[in-house]
């Protein structure tokens, strides 16, 4: 059917095929070579600038996603606070997220660099690009969090942008400590598969540990606080998996962070002086004791008795 290949077409085909295969081979064999990192750095700063501009344009039109109920509830307060904001481009939901972030950072004594998500990775990997880079003090292997908890870790940095590997990525591994017991384990992402609906996989190293649904966990300190600073809330146990063959307890974890609606996040550029342990965890929602009022009809004394 189509067009017969001319000589020129064939030549272009061969040249580009060889180039593409060479690129794939190069990138596959040595993913972290300095040459490759240099190329990615150079192009990243160019594309990052474009993405930055485009994201602010897109944000102007769409705003970041947040539930409309929240927005309506906070509208009054935000409109009041907005006049005081120096950063005029912050949208309402962004403000809310920033507020939460600073609150969390204050609790944990983290020094954070706030940043906004400007681009999302292509394909199956779970990565995002933030609009803060080495010029803002961001380096690789730093913890990224938002007002709800752990988001991920910084994997690559350019001058104005950085790339964050989300905790839901299949290749992400986070060391955690369970809240009341202090048992340590690891949480791995489940990738982009929608079947797990964004749950993470937990594996606790202590084989004798018993897991209960609703248990909370925070990050355990990594070596030199890289990539994870201690005490960042990760999530709660949603389901305990009892597999007969497994040596260690397994569970599914529901993260605190809504990865579908990432807006303002913070990069921890200075770890806390001491481990905050579990102090940053959100309060466990205690169900209020239900007050039940039972009214029982008491029969009135019979008129015959009073009369008598």
């Amino acid at each position, binding site marked *: *059917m*189509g*067009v017969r*290949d*001319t000589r*020129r*077409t064939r030549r*272009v*085909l061969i040249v*580009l*095929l060889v*180039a*593409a*295969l*060479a*690129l*794939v*081979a*190069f*990138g*596959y064999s040595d*993913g972290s070579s300095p040459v*490759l990192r240099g*190329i*990615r750095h150079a*192009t*990243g700063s160019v*594309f*990052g600038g*474009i*993405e930055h501009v*485009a*994201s602010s344009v*897109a944000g102007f039109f769409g705003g970041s996603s947040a539930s409309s109920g929240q927005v309506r509830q906070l509208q009054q307060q935000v409109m009041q606070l907005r006049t005081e904001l120096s950063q005029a481009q912050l949208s309402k939901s962004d403000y809310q997220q920033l507020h939460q972030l600073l609150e969390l950072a204050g609790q944990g004594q983290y020094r954070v660099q706030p940043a906004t*998500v*400007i*681009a*999302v*990775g*292509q*394909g*199956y*990997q779970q*990565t*995002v*690009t933030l609009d803060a880079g080495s010029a803002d003090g961001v380096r690789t292997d730093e913890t990224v969090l938002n007002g709800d908890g752990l988001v991920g870790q910084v994997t*690559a940095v*350019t001058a104005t*942008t950085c*790339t*964050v590997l989300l905790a839901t*990525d*299949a*290749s992400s591994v986070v060391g955690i400590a369970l809240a009341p017991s202090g048992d340590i384990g690891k949480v791995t992402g489940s*990738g*982009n*598969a*929608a*079947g797990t609906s964004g749950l993470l996989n937990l594996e606790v190293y202590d084989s004798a540990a018993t897991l209960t649904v609703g248990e909370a966990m925070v990050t355990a300190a990594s070596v030199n606080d890289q990539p994870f600073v201690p005490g960042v809330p990760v999530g709660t146990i949603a389901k305990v998996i009892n597999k007969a063959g497994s040596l260690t307890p397994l569970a599914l974890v529901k993260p605190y962070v809504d990865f*579908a609606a990432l807006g303002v996040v913070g990069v921890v550029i200075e770890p806390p002086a001491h481990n905050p342990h579990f102090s940053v965890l959100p309060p466990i929602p205690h169900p209020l004791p239900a007050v039940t009022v039972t009214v029982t009809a008491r029969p009135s004394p019979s008129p015959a008795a009073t009369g008598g």
Partner: protein
Amino acid sequence: MRRTVLTVGSLAVALVVQLVVLNGLHLPGGGVPDLVLVLVAVLAITGGPVRGMVAGFTAGLALDLAPPGSAVLGEYALVFFLVGWAAGKLSGVLERSALQSLILLAGVVALGEAAVSGLTLALDPAQVNLAGVRQLLPPAIGYDLLLLPFLLYLALLAGAWASASELHRDLDSSGALAVRSRKAQAHQASKQRVPHLGLAAGRPHDGWVGSGPASRSRPPRRAAVPRGLRPGHGVAGSAVTGVTPRPRLTPPPVNLRLSSRRRGFGVVGSPVGSAIGRHPAHPGLRSTASSHFRPHPGVPGGSASGHAALLRPTPLRPGQRRPAHVRFGTRRGDGSVGRLLGTPGPAGGSAGLLDRTGLSASRLRFRHGAAPRFRTASLAPPRSRPKAVPRFKRAGYAAVSPALAGGLSTTRGLRSAGTLDQRELLAARRRLLGVPRLRLASGRRGDGQLGGSVRGLLRSPRPAKPATPRFRAGSLAHASGRPEPKRPRFGYGRHSVLSFLAARGVGGKWLARRRAGSRSGAWLIGRRAGGVR
């Protein structure tokens, strides 16, 4: 130019939209549309394989490198480039049927999405498992196919706009942009199609079809000549009328179809409808920056232009284009009017060109209804000589083989008179080939054509190298009785690398084994003896 800007701009916008907006969406089903992939496919099918390949490779590489970037560098470059190639191969289908091309394009896009997933699975198994692919791939493909018709429509619109503006500009600069009135169109339609060639054009620039060499000693340019028209510079269509176009008047209409009884004959320039994509426009329409033809050596029958370089290898200047190729004959190959042969002679001037050669004689008078049949006789009469009247013979010998022309160029006929009669031609043939039965005129399609088509010539990236004439079976190579044996490209022939090494004693034993294979000596002997298998 405009098309390239459109391509690059749309790809850049799609890339940014993909990374900033689309990838962050959470659509039902889980996947997101791959806008860049669809755009590459659409650009390829409207622009051809080369454009598609380059666009796909560039866009894929940008997607690989732009933060957050892909896991393995080059995976999108590889897949998108292949998608661009495959979709570009479908560009012929697009001209036939929209629905068919849409369906095929959908298949290409779906394959591209699957290839991305497969490559990720193969190269980065930690990233994704098969269950995830099975879950996310179908919705992603579905969203792609939703986008596809709209993008294709937009690309067709943009492509038509770009080519229309190009065409408009070129026609405008040639002064030939005009539309016939309805009445004239009806009149034309009712009339039988007869060749329109400038009847006895008396003015210097009249009667020109195609282009002629620059006239250095012509009378100065007339003011009435529209922009881009110079005396001696042929512009497609300028020969149609003998009327000198006056300024602020509608330019005279162009009869693009000259003496065509069949479709495709005598069309000057590429048909507008096909200008959407990869067809290089005819030199007459696609002018260079100066909007007129440049003088360069041409040959009778533009298809045979290859042997101009054989006769006198003049390297084309970088901006120059290959010769034009206009046909007027009733039969294919008859009466080709190309550029005229630049004869290396004292009259050639600094550029080695003759002034006003061949058809420029402005003497081509045609009876009404007579189809012009030009012959090699339209070659180059020197200006000092009386103008040669082209002879019209029964059968056209429009194209001359390089060997024949090379032989003829030494004869007096070509040099001096520019006219060859049949006897001289036959004598030259006999002298060269010994076989008089060389049929160069075209009875069938493709016969007698030397070199590639115009399109092939235009695409040829090496202008200095003459195009090798290709003969059909039964033409020159066969007639001469000395068929050139085909030689394998990568064999052990005289020019192979292995034989080169072997001749110098490099790697003797190893090479010998290469040549013989790993068979045992007994096997070989037996085989040569014809006994054992």
